[in-house]
């Protein structure tokens, strides 16, 4: 048995949880290894220390003090419900996160899908010189026409599927 293995078995040895084979190997190793023997003594001292610990008791009135704080907390919750609405806040964050992901997804989708008509115009149009404002306006116009284009395609697909015209819908 190597030292590393013996060290890991020390606590189980002290709690009498080694099987027969492990016990024999462990004791044989201790007989020849000074380092592991001293580790065993330290572990034994720690366990003995645990047994010698005086029984700790919480001070008198402890529960009353805790409950006083808890009741104050409850009173504050009733006075300011939204601040403490843990589940409500968690749902709100989830909804916000979902909205952000959806918006980001639409924007990324708009840039990546080549069939998205509104964008081909934006990409091929050279950036205006010395006029950043109109450049940004073009991007947003492209976004807007891009989104419009998606819904037009969807609408067309629905009409085709139903085999009718827009007027009939």
């Amino acid at each position, binding site marked *: 048995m190597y030292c590393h293995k013996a060290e890991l078995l020390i606590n189980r040895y002290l709690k009498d949880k080694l099987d027969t084979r492990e016990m024999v190997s462990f004791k044989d190793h201790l007989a020849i290894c000074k380092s592991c023997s*001293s580790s065993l003594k330290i572990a034994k*001292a*720690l366990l003995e220390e645990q047994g010698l610990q005086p029984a700790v008791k919480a001070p008198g009135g402890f529960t009353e003090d805790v409950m006083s704080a808890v009741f104050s907390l409850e009173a504050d919750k009733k006075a300011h419900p939204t601040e403490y609405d843990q589940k409500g806040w968690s749902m709100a964050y989830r909804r916000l996160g979902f909205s952000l992901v959806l918006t980001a997804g639409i924007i990324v989708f708009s840039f990546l899908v080549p069939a998205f008509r509104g964008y081909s115009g934006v990409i091929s149009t050279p950036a205006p010189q010395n006029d950043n404002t109109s450049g940004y306006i073009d991007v947003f116009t492209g976004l807007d026409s891009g989104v419009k284009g998606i819904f037009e395609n969807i609408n067309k697909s629905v009409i085709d599927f139903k085999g009718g015209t827009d007027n009939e819908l």
Partner: protein
Amino acid sequence: MTWKTTKEVMGVLMTDESIIELVLAGNTHMFSQLVDRHKDKIYGMALSFTGNNSDAQDVSQEIFIKAYKNLFRFNRKSKFSTWLYRVSYNVCIDWIRSNNKHGRDLDLTGFDNILTDSRAGPEESFLEKEKRFILKKAIYDLKEKYRNILILFYFQALSYEETAEVLEIPVKTVETQLYRARKQLKVLLKHETGDEPYVLP
């Protein structure tokens, strides 16, 4: 013969999980049953980390208040006591860090009591008591990670599994860290006593 109130009898008969259900349903006063059941252990844990009664009282109250606020997060995958230990551990660590407490800064006054502790019996020699004091001092001189795991495993008497849950590490890692903690302790004790190995009676 003392007559217990219905509430007290109910509290004694109910499991922690049942009491939690009642508390979450709005029966706030039932939380006192949980506090009564676990206050000594939690106070003991806070005392192990803070080293003095005054701070231990503040920290242990903070633990229960935090537990109350987060009771809805208890998911019954482990025992309530283990979950409470995890909350306690986190609060104690936060306290140590926010107060910039290191092992050597901890008030070791409580450890002086070891030298006069009569619990071990009058036959325990002063020399043996002094060795215990040296051992405890060395524990508090360890790195935070090693000190904490020794406190949890030896002084709080948590099992491997409970220690693993509190520290949120695998059981095998608990074994490895205990081994490294003892190795560090050996070095410190040798430095302190000039003795190899640390001699026990």
